[in-house]
């Protein structure tokens, strides 16, 4: 457990999570592993229902009641102290949440208690983590609200319904970093917003990360956002990380047909495409997933081997890992296109 | 053959109904309390609509059996010297003691002229000096007979701590009266009539009245509520305002005042009046439901397909409201029940039909309610009404949970 390098802030190690349902066990996360470095921004991309949100919820142990972690560890390192998030007591967990790892949920529209002023909700949060000085809280909150480019005094004394959607999202971002967490999880931070507000939020995020130096785990199916924000990108399919690597590696030299499919199904400004293709078929049933490589029924590269044997996440090139038997064929075919 | 579609319909309709019923029961059985409620209602139906055919209404006053506790009889205590005084007739011209907090006084009322009546108060909790005084007087032959509940009297005598007194009672007092009738399941009322038979016969009219009230109220609300929601405009405004105006008048009070001034002559007629009183709240609920259904996608789709209003109302909206209407109907039946029995208990409704409500009314007005040994006369109907209402509510809740699509999708 102590083999964590000093700059690693979070390590997910062989994590598996199952949802117990009436129709059977849903294997939402399978043997997921990754490291998050200090100051790094990692994007988890994938279709809806691929298990991105399950992974992120597990990080703050906010999984639904019917979820069971069947395997793995989540190690968190701060000030040379390593602790397993899954082993925290209720009390420790309460302290860990938001203070060490904050999560900005999707749909900030309803993230604030409608009957409390924003000020009260900032104070609640700070006080729950041992802050007592109201003025200190106020000072910190105002500076953060300023950082997210809001009128601090006015927003601080507002009720949530008096703020617009974009303002609420930014307020939530400010609240997210109130306690100076090491890790901030952003779950679809821009989905419900119009394009201009999205833009503003991204700028704010970039600014904030530069100034406050926290790590980001970023969940999105918006690939352009991921391309812009992330240092590292992990592709999640059927509860598994099928590819992980630096942002340029993933976007320009992807080694997994699924990632490639995602990229070609979205028009991006970064690299123009003539033909938009969607991935055929639909996401697999996680109660009874396909044999072998779970992507094989939808994959144009699939061979007999893929149906029988699931590929492991292996090093493709430098720090770029992918779980595919046909990395080379994919790379070769891409070269023809590009 | 020309007749075959009709024949087919005749065969298939009951089959369809049966299949629907089976499906209904199967879905209902997933909700345990609801199923219990449903079974309870079936039981009530059986007890109040079928059983009266085989159980006779006991309408014959039996003067030797008044308001007894469960399974017991009121009995006569006499001095051992005079065992021949075993009936009221035989006691004519004698002095008869009664304890005023038992059924005795009302029992003896019609005979007051034939006896000299000595009244005792039952003062303390169980064996007050009143009863002791009465027994002592009897033992000393100062009175000739004592009219009281046998069970209690034997207890008073057997548990008497003063040995001398106990001995005197045991030596001189005879409290058995073998010529009395059989014990009754729920005891007897102030006229010695079997309460159990009244229980069997006393529910039918109540339930019918509540049903009439509930159905009329629901029909009015359904018709005008849907009308205002579907037509809108002035009609909608008018009925909403009317419902609000009526809601502002306390409906039960209105009913009480009406009953106090008009005097209804039939219980069923009372149901009609209740039906005309309870519609406003229902109308608002049904109007809201129709409005929300009207905005639903499938209704929109039907409208854009150019289907007629009739089709939309009878094929799209009403079927989707059936469970909602059923729930409202059940709840209005409980309200109608509340209204009518409330009136009866106050003595403002007709008491010509001997219903559970009337039993409570008599239990109160004749004082048996306040008598430890005679309380069954009121307790039995009180429990019957309470459990009936509970069954209705449990059933309605189950229908709400199992069949209301709005709740199902939210769960």
């Amino acid at each position, binding site marked *: 457990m102590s083999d964590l390098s000093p700059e690693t802030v979070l390590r997910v190690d062989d994590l598996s999570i199952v949802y117990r349902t009436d129709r059977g066990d849903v294997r939402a996360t399978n043997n997921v592993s990754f490291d998050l470095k200090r100051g790094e921004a990692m994007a988890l991309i994938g279709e809806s229902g691929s298990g991105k949100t399950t992974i992120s919820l597990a990080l703050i142990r906010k999984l639904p009641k019917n979820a069971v972690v069947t395997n793995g560890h989540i190690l968190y390192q701060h000030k040379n102290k390593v602790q397993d998030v899954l082993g925290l007591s209720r009390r420790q967990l309460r302290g860990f949440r938001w203070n060490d790892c904050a999560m900005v949920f999707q749909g900030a529209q309803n993230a604030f208690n409608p009957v409390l002023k924003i000020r009260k909700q900032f104070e609640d949060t700070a006080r729950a983590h041992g802050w007592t000085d109201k003025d200190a809280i106020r000072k910190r909150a105002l500076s953060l609200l300023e950082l997210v480019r809001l009128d601090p005094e006015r927003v601080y004394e507002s009720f949530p319904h008096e703020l617009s959607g974009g303002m609420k999202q930014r307020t939530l971002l400010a609240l997210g970093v109130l306690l100076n967490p090491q890790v901030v999880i952003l779950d679809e931070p821009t989905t419900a917003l119009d394009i201009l507000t999205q833009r503003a939020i991204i700028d704010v995020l970039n600014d904030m990360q530069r100034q406050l130096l926290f790590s980001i785990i970023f969940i999105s199916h918006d690939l352009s956002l991921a391309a812009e924000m992330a240092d590292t990108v992990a592709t999640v399919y059927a509860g598994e990380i099928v590819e992980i690597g630096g942002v340029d590696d993933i976007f320009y030299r992807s080694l997994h047909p699924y990632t490639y499919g995602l990229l070609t199904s979205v028009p991006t400004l970064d690299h123009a495409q003539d033909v938009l293709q969607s991935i055929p078929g639909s996401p697999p049933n996680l109660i009874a997933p396909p044999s072998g490589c779970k992507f094989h029924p939808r994959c144009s590269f699939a061979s007999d081997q893929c149906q029988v044997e699931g590929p492991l996440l292996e090093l493709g090139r430098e720090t770029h890992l992918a779980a595919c038997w046909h990395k080379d064929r994919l790379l070769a075919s891409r070269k023809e296109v590009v | 053959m020309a007749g075959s579609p009709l024949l087919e319909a005749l065969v298939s309709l009951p089959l369809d109904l049966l299949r629907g019923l089976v499906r209904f029961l199967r879905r209902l059985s997933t909700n345990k309390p609801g199923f219990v409620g449903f079974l309870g209602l079936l039981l009530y139906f059986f007890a109040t609509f079928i059983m009266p055919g085989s159980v006779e209404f006991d309408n014959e006053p039996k003067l030797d059996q008044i308001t007894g506790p469960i399974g017991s009889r009121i009995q006569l205590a006499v001095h051992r010297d005079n065992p021949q005084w075993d009936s009221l007739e035989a006691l004519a011209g004698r002095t008869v003691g009664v304890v005023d907090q038992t059924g005795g006084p009302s029992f003896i009322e019609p005979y007051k002229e034939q006896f000299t009546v000595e009244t005792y108060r039952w003062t303390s909790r169980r064996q007050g000096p009143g009863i002791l005084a009465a027994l002592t007087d009897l033992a000393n032959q100062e009175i000739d007979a004592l009219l009281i509940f046998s069970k209690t009297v034997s207890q008073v005598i057997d548990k008497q701590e003063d040995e001398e007194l106990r001995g005197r009672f045991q030596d001189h007092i005879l409290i058995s009266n073998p010529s009395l009738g059989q014990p009754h399941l729920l005891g007897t009322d102030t006229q010695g009539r079997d309460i159990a038979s009244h229980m069997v016969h006393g529910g039918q009219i109540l339930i019918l009245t509540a049903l009439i009230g509930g159905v009329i109220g629901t029909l009015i609300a359904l018709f005008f509520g849907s009308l205002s929601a579907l037509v809108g405009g002035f009609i909608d405004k008018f009925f909403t305002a009317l419902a609000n105006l009526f809601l*502002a008048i306390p409906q039960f009070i209105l009913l009480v005042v009406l009953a106090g001034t008009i005097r209804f002559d039939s219980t069923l007629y009372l149901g009609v009046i209740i039906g005309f009183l309870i519609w406003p709240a229902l109308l608002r609920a049904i109007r809201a439901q129709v409005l929300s259904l009207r905005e639903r996608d499938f209704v929109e789709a039907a409208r854009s397909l150019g289907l007629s209003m009739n089709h939309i109302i009878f094929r799209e909206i009403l079927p989707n409201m059936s469970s909602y209407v059923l729930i409202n109907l059940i709840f209005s039946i409980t309200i109608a029940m509340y209204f009518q029995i409330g009136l009866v208990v106050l003595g403002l409704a007709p008491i010509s039909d001997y219903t559970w409500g009337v039993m409570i009314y008599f239990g109160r007005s004749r004082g048996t309610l306040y008598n430890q040994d005679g309380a069954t006369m009121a307790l039995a109907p009180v429990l019957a009404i309470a459990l009936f209402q509970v069954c209705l509510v449990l059933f309605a809740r189950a229908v709400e949970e199992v069949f209301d699509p709005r709740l199902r999708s939210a769960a």
Partner: protein
Amino acid sequence: MLNDQQPLATNRQLPATNMSLMAAQLYDSLLKIYRNYTVRVFLQAIITIWAVMTLTFVLVRLMPGNPVDVLVEQILTNEGISYQEAYERVAASFNIDSDATPLDQYFQWLGDLLRLDLGISITSPGTKVIDEIARFLPWTVFAVGSGLLISFVLGIFAGMPMAYYRGSKLDHILSFFSSFSTGVPNYIWGLLIIIVPGIAWRWFDIGALRGTYDAGLTPGLNAEFILSALEHAALPVFTYVIAILGTWMLSMKSSTTGVLNEDYVNVAEARGLKERTVISSYVGRNAALPLFTQLTISIGFVLSSGVVVEEIFVYWGIGHHLFQSITVRDYTSLQGVVLLLTAAIVFSNLFADLTYGLLDPRVRVSGEK
């Protein structure tokens, strides 16, 4: 440009930018709606009361077989005085100026009502109806009010765990109880309380608990009187509590269930707030909000549903008074009580409409629910 300050929806100090101008207009129109809303609910309340008063006037005076004629008839047969004399006497009780036209009578009667002059009791001549009401009403308000408040608080505390542990044994037991509580009429609860603990177990002497306080005590702020009043009110209050509790439990359960699914509760937990804080100021506060409206609305209804309960316990409140007035056909008292209870319902609705904004900040601005 993109990151320009967006004005708040309610902006008091408005910079003269285009966007702020729109916001200012929005604020003004919202304020107008709010004012209109207040005016609207007030008007509705007044119109309702006026309609009921008029209805009463018509029923009492103009309908064939109305109480005035009936009473005049009665006095005529009993006392053998002239019709004019009998009519004058009845008219005096009802506050009718017998010389005036019906329309004048109507307006005069309305004016009297506005001055809370409800006429004189027919059966106890010389007693003003309003004085009688003032004598009986406080007891009902006391008993019903305590019953309502106690059941409300209990219901909130019982309803929340029902939602938190949905489907558990606790939920099933409490749900079952609430079916009993709501299904069984309040007077049936009253009778059960009298028969079982009162008569069968002799826990209390029901006969001694008649009335609103022990005879012989002088009302006032002395311990003996207050204790006696509490003792006499205990059974009716308990009856109200047990009969209303289920409704609050179920309302609170469904309201809490809804709130538990809200994002802000989830976020509050993720923020590492103390469980106590989440339960009280996030879940509880939001879930209880709609119940306050129900509470204010139900005041009027419960006041009037206590008639039978008061009669059963012989508790001398307004319901008992109403029933007595019916049995002796004291029409002026009857009219007074009905008008008063109607007014209570209308005003409790009005109160609910106007105070909801104080509890829910979202309504403060728009004035809409």
